């Protein structure tokens, strides 16, 4: 019996337990959530050396992989699980010090997000991936709206409509690959990809890409970013880029490199290589995101656009198609996740102490509170 499945099951069960138990215990909910996600994060770190030695498929329920749903553990997926779990643990820890500490459903949503993101990262089945993507979406809409104000409701609703419309295209992609290859298992799909004609493989690839690019905040699909980041509590804005965005970027790697492979990635459409189109989108996103960040007065919108720019850099590195490029993209993803999460948490504390999110009005914060002033340094 392999216990890897606990990374998905334990947070989901704890999330539902927290929602039910909020009837009689309100105080302990946050500490229970912290215990669960902290323990899972440490455990993922201890599993990492073993995962580096080689990837293993994990069979669930005794169904052999092409027929049943399996998980896939290797250095990349276990490392991403450790990163995402660590970021969410940090978020819960921050939340315990905050005014929202007495809302058990908030921690339930955090654990729901943790379980579904781990599922997205670990699963070896394309449809299972879709299900976890939708669950993580629902947890995110709830968390964004948790600040219970005008901006929160607006940001959550816009994000829901755009992500919901984009995820429909993921199902179109699933229908296309299932029709041509007769399988939904990712490893099996990669093997049977030559059964698809070039044109339909491209359309399927674009369909899979649309929701992933939307959640990774890439240029034509990132209209939701400013409203959603502004409306969400700072900690949730941090998770949007450090956990949700990074998990989506990881899924892009999974679909591009491992399923469609360099052969389809390098296909020429209308005189332009697919990889070159992605390179263009990545550069455009990086430049536009950082330019938009420069002109923001609102600290949260500034960090939101900077996060867009960083994800554009990640896509640029990814579309260079090579193992060195992938190392660069992964390094950028990890450092971006940690830095942006900590920046959003610092901004949350500063907004709490000054009462404004306009960073030009933050003059003198460091003098009044030296420790907090240091927090803004990177």
């Amino acid at each position, binding site marked *: 019996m392999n216990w890897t499945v606990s990374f998905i099951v334990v947070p989901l069960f704890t999330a539902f337990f927290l929602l039910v138990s909020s009837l009689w215990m309100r105080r302990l909910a946050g500490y229970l959530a912290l215990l669960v996600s902290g323990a899972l994060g440490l455990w993922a770190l201890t599993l990492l050396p073993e995962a580096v030695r080689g990837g293993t498929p994990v069979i669930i329920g005794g169904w052999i992989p092409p027929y049943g749903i399996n998980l896939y553990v290797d250095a990349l997926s276990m490392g991403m699980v450790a990163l995402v779990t660590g970021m969410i643990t940090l978020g819960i820890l921050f939340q315990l010090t905050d005014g929202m500490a007495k809302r058990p459903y908030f921690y339930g949503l955090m654990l729901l997000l943790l379980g579904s993101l781990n599922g997205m990262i670990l699963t070896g089945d394309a449809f299972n991936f879709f299900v976890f993507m939708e669950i993580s979406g629902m947890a995110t809409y709830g968390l964004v709206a948790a600040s219970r104000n005008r901006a929160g*409701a*607006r940001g959550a*609703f816009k994000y829901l409509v755009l992500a*919901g419309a984009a995820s*429909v295209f993921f*199902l*179109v992609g699933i229908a296309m690959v299932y029709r041509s290859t007769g399988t939904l298992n990712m490893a099996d799909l990669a093997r049977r990809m030559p059964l698809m004609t070039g044109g339909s493989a491209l359309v399927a690839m674009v369909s899979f890409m649309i929701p992933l690019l939307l959640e990774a905040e890439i240029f034509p699909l990132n209209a939701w970013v400013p409203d959603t980041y502004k409306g969400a509590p700072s900690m949730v804005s941090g998770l949007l880029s450090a956990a949700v965005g990074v998990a989506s970027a990881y899924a892009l790697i999974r679909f591009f490199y491992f399923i469609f492979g360099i052969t389809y990635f390098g296909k020429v459409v209308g005189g332009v290589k697919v990889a070159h189109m992605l390179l263009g989108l990545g550069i455009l996103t990086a430049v536009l995101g950082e330019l938009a960040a420069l002109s923001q007065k609102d600290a949260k919108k500034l960090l939101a656009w900077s996060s867009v720019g960083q994800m554009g850099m990640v896509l640029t590195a990814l579309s260079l198609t090579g193992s060195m490029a992938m190392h660069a993209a992964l390094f950028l993803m990890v450092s971006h996740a940690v830095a942006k999460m900590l920046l959003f948490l610092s901004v949350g504390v500063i907004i709490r102490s000054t009462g404004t999110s306009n960073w030009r009005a933050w003059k003198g914060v460091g003098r009044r509170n030296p420790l907090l002033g240091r927090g803004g340094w990177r």
Partner: protein
Amino acid sequence: MGELFYHGLGFVLILIGLYGVLTLKNVFRLILALGIMETGVNIILVATGWHPGAKVPIIDTTVQGAGFAAYADPLPSALVLTAIVIGLGTTALALVLALLYKESHGTDELGGETEEEVVE
């Protein structure tokens, strides 16, 4: 009617829904447009497992080898069931958020918000 008809029908529904999502301003109409998109993709998925003259996939031990070809593929139908449940959940959540939007903004139309407010 061949399976191409159903694929085409589903695709047209997705495009109608997408047009709605991109152009409408009313929050409740946006949710309706999302529902139309989901219905369209469900039709495509069901049509993937079906071919003209396919039998209901209830199979006993007498069916062997090439005999399976006469039946519809049940797996896409199972996928559609899951997709319908997810769609229901998303729609319910969207309606709650739409109500929250309407209560906090006093209108059910998106757009035109310029107020500055502080969110911790």
